[in-house]
């Protein structure tokens, strides 16, 4: 799944996702990606977030909406992402998932849930301080 957040020079936020979902799913199954607040969320008064992972689990927590609300409270994007992951961890310790967050000043971060075989999450960033699109990685919590 790709989840993306774009914040323009004047702070306008847009987000989006696209996916073909889980493999061998039961026909009719829809994951978190097309659900606003789950797959992604954008609010130009606070920031944007997008989630990826096991959509059956993640959609139940509206992780993208939650992350934006944390940033609205002034949390740093990385902390906002981590808090979302830890919220889900309480109920499903072994869930597979990651979140990216960015606020309207252009600060960004990401977080993921550490499980065997998934201990780091790679994501892409491009901003004026980078001469090209940069692959970045966070250690899962």
């Amino acid at each position, binding site marked *: 799944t790709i989840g993306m957040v774009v914040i323009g020079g004047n702070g306008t936020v847009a*987000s989006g996702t696209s996916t073909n979902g889980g493999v061998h799913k039961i026909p009719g199954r829809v994951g978190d990606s097309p659900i606003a607040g789950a797959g992604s969320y954008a609010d130009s008064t606070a920031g944007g977030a997008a989630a990826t992972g096991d959509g059956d689990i993640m959609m139940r927590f509206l992780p993208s909406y939650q992350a934006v609300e944390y940033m609205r409270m002034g949390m740093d994007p990385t902390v906002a992402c981590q808090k979302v992951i830890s919220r889900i961890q309480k109920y499903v310790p072994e869930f597979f998932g990651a979140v990216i967050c960015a606020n309207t000043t252009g600060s960004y971060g990401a977080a993921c849930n550490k499980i065997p075989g998934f201990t780091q999450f790679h994501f892409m960033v491009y901003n004026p301080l980078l001469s090209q699109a940069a692959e970045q990685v966070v250690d899962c919590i």
Partner: protein
Amino acid sequence: TAALPVVINTWAFRKATETAWRVLQLGGSELDAVEKGCGQCEIDQCDGSVGYGGSPDESGETTLDAMIMDGNTMEVGAVADLRRVKNAIGVARKVIEHTKHTLLVGESASLFAVRMGFPYEDLTTPKSLSMYSKWLNQSCQPNYWKNVVPDSSKSCGPYKRLEKVICEKWTISQRNVHNHD
């Protein structure tokens, strides 16, 4: 350090990031950048989890989910279980622009897409077909069923519900870092 504009996306899908950034540099809107950036992954079939020819369902079909959101107006366009149309996020954008709805699903969403001028085409590829037949040959394992007969952990369906439901705590049956949405 904070700096604007910024494009951030999940996984190392570099071409998507570069496409979105280029749209911004050429004067496109943030929504344009999201649509084209994510749309690039649909074309590239990023890690098999985006776009046509990936993640076949139990009937071997690839179906697509996508959304796009405008943080200024809080408008959202989304499609789910979209069949036989490749550019899911493009269709999601049309939901914002040409309907007062937010989410359109299934075959009817495909009909809407055709009305919006998107081609109606098969999303199956030799790769997704081979994934599907391999799965059938390994007794349809793994799958997302529980409390059914025959035992879904041992054989394919069709399944019927098991009279006595066994309460299982969150079972994570899929652990494949490429199986995500």
